[in-house]
């Protein structure tokens, strides 16, 4: 039997955030506005989910300046990548259980 699905990732909105960040290369970051547009979320909603993911150690938030404009970049941490891989593996176990 697979372990209980990771509740931090299992919420659909956060799953979409994590899946998007996992599509980036290792060591790559995406700017907050670009991620928000990709996910079609409000800024407040995305911030809330990112904070939960950051608290869990899955997402790294880097605040910086580009010229005079503040900019925020997001990336999946190694912990986050592992958690996402485990989550997908657990889903596949469930799928096999259904089919088998």
């Amino acid at each position, binding site marked *: 039997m697979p372990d209980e699905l990771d509740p931090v990732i299992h919420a659909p909105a956060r799953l979409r955030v994590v899946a998007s960040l996992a599509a980036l290369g290792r060591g790559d970051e*995406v700017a907050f506005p670009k991620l928000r547009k990709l996910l079609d*979320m409000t800024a407040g*909603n995305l911030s809330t989910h990112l904070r939960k993911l950051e608290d869990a150690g899955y997402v790294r938030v880097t605040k910086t300046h580009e010229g005079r404009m503040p900019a925020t970049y997001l990336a999946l941490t190694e912990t986050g990548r592992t958690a996402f891989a485990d989550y997908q593996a657990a889903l596949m176990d469930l799928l096999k259980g*259904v*089919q088998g």
Partner: protein
Amino acid sequence: MADHDNPAGERARAGDDPEAGSDRGLSPAETLRMIRQQQEAARDATEPDGRLLFGVWGLAWLVGYLAMWTSARDTGTPERWAGWVLAGCIVGAMAFTIVHSITRTAGTRGASARIGALYGWTWFLAFTTFGVLIGAMGDAGAPPEVMAIAANGVACLIVGIMYIAGGLLFDENRMSAVGAWMLVTAALAAFAGMPNTYLVMAVAGGGGFLAMVVVEQGIRARRRSTGAVAATPGGGRDA
């Protein structure tokens, strides 16, 4: 994806909200499919589209080198207008590649962005050197046939090596395969003689790029249609 988050986020439980209901409602297969679609959307938003780039370069080579071949068939050497057509095609494809790549990768930073920028600059430097070399050969009095062999062969050599290197850098084996094919094209073009060397460039070179558009499209379509089950170990038995 049809779901739209609202500020209430995961606490929302409205019956007709697919996002809210899906917390417990999505089956593992549906969830895996959603992950795959989301990642495809993320890649589309952050990486250049191989189909577009292969397509643009395929057309540029096909049209440009066909112009060279057509005009060289009568007199043995390409005419000036054909040279301008080829130059226009190459410059147009370059401009498209730069704008498309910058647009797609805007808002990302990190290792891929750095490698991508260096890779782009390497293309620029390589073809600047190419222009200088060909110019120097002309100044030294190389006959048109030798110039044609050198220009076509070295262009294919650079493209071939850069595509193989790109395939290694970006972990894209298909890109390396195109590079290897371009090295074959260099050899074919070198022995084709005038004016058929240009036909080889148009058909084998341009055609090679265009074949990759079909390959890329096929891979995308298959990935989409097989669904999440294809991702399970042991393949999609009984989807």
